[in-house]
């Protein structure tokens, strides 16, 4: 990402600012569905004061693990400001990609780390883990109570009762579009999902879609920001719980969800914080679904690599996560 072009974009967005400079532009590893760049900017404001700020730019990739929508993420961050759900403040969005080759938006850089493995395993963070587990459950309950009508472009099923069939159909269609080879384990899993649809939720909720350790920032005070909303949609709130309990996120390599606390404990904290009561059968359905969804995300990444749409080697590597997901799926549904 070119610092001069980034500075020129900032200048164009801040007519009262002069002497805009950009430094420390660095791509943050990970973020396989959208590029994440950190940078610092400084300028002189209309009152003559020198201002220095740290930002994050989220830019569309050339090839990706999933097709996602910059507008939706920008709109969500805007809508969630002041909701009690910690999110970075968003500043600017460019949809045509004129300034930086591809569409992007810019938001503030919040303090904290995202490394889920360190959080789950570091002896230094043992006292912090229960704090974060509780906050994670409380934020999720709050998020599920958010008014979805405040986000008009949020994709939603026709009704609450259609939540699960809608998601199953959506991801099955994605698999059929993206797969380069037959996927018998996923076909078996789709059959299981269609025969084990959960009871519908009382109402449609805001579903983050990727709510897991690794997608929030934390520091010694706890969670400082919830990130990576590109898979957000309206649906069954238990979907988010199904995603965060899958084996892939058990960073401590034991049964603790997200490497933080036992599953039952997390569910109870979520319910105590105002989340709807979680039906264990629905949680299992969404856990199976989440493993399927995860595998299909990697199938999409594999296609990007094979078709030469990306040089991001992470996407080539993630293809090799799928065998573990297949084993887990067969364990869950056998």
């Amino acid at each position, binding site marked *: 990402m070119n610092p001069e072009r980034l500075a020129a974009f900032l200048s164009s967005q801040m007519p009262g600012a002069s002497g805009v400079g950009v430094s420390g532009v660095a791509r943050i590893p990970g973020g396989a569905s959208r590029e994440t760049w950190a940078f610092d900017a400084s300028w002189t404001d209309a009152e003559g004061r020198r201002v220095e700020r740290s930002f994050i730019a989220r830019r569309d990739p050339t090839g990706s693990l999933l097709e996602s929508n910059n507008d939706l993420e920008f709109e969500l961050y805007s809508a969630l400001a002041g909701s009690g759900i910690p999110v970075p403040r968003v500043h600017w969005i460019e949809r045509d990609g004129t300034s930086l080759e591809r569409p992007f938006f810019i938001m503030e850089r919040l303090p904290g780390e995202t490394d889920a493995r360190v959080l789950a395993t570091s002896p230094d963070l043992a006292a912090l883990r229960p704090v974060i587990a509780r906050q994670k459950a409380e934020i999720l309950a709050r998020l599920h109570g958010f008014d979805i009508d405040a986000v008009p472009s949020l994709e939603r099923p026709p009704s609450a009762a259609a939540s699960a069939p809608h998601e199953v159909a959506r991801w099955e269609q994605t698999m059929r579009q993206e797969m380069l080879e037959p996927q018998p384990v996923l076909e078996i899993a789709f*059959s299981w999902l269609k025969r084990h649809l959960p009871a519908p939720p009382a109402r449609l909720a805001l579903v983050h879609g990727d709510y897991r350790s690794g997608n929030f920032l934390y520091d010694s005070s706890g969670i400082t920001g919830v990130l990576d909303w590109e898979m957000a949609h309206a649906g069954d709130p238990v979907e988010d719980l199904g995603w965060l309990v899958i084996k892939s996120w058990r960073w401590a390599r034991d049964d603790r969800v997200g490497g933080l606390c036992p599953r039952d404990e997390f569910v109870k904290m979520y319910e105590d914080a105002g989340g709807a009561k979680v039906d264990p059968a629905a949680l299992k359905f969404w856990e199976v679904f989440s493993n399927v969804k995860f595998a299909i995300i990697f199938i999409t990444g594999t296609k990007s690599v094979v078709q030469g749409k990306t040089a991001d080697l992470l996407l080539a590597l993630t293809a090799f996560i799928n065998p*573990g997901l297949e084993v887990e799926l067969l364990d869950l549904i056998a």
Partner: protein
Amino acid sequence: MRPYPEELLRALQGGIATHLAPELQSNYAKAQFGFAMLLFNIATRDYDTAVPDLIEANRTLRSLLNEAMQALAVIATEGAAEARAAAALPPAADSLRLAALRAEHDDLRAVLSKLAPLIEAAGDDDALAPLRESRTAIYAYLAADAKKRIVPILSA
């Protein structure tokens, strides 16, 4: 002739690690380098056994599908008849080239995919009970096959 392809892969990996890695500055570039090293390991691991693995997998899959087809033949539902008609077994590969063996493998997995809804439902649908033995064997095969492909560092 030497170096064999797997030896070349190891030489490439070593050369890149020795000469290029120290030049990398950003965390992003260092992460990409780490991914490249893992991918080299996977390519080296899979290179030598690709042909015998595919031959064995195709033989096992064909046998499992034959057994499933025989089980389907005694199930008198419309779905079973349709599945049998739609899931004819493909011919065996006509050479030991990887492309031919992979094509056969994909064709066999496509047949298994077509049968998947019946095989899955056989677990608790009494009308499909004759498929249960096949279901158990196919699940065991699929799990074993997936375990062989696992890259330990990537799996929880």
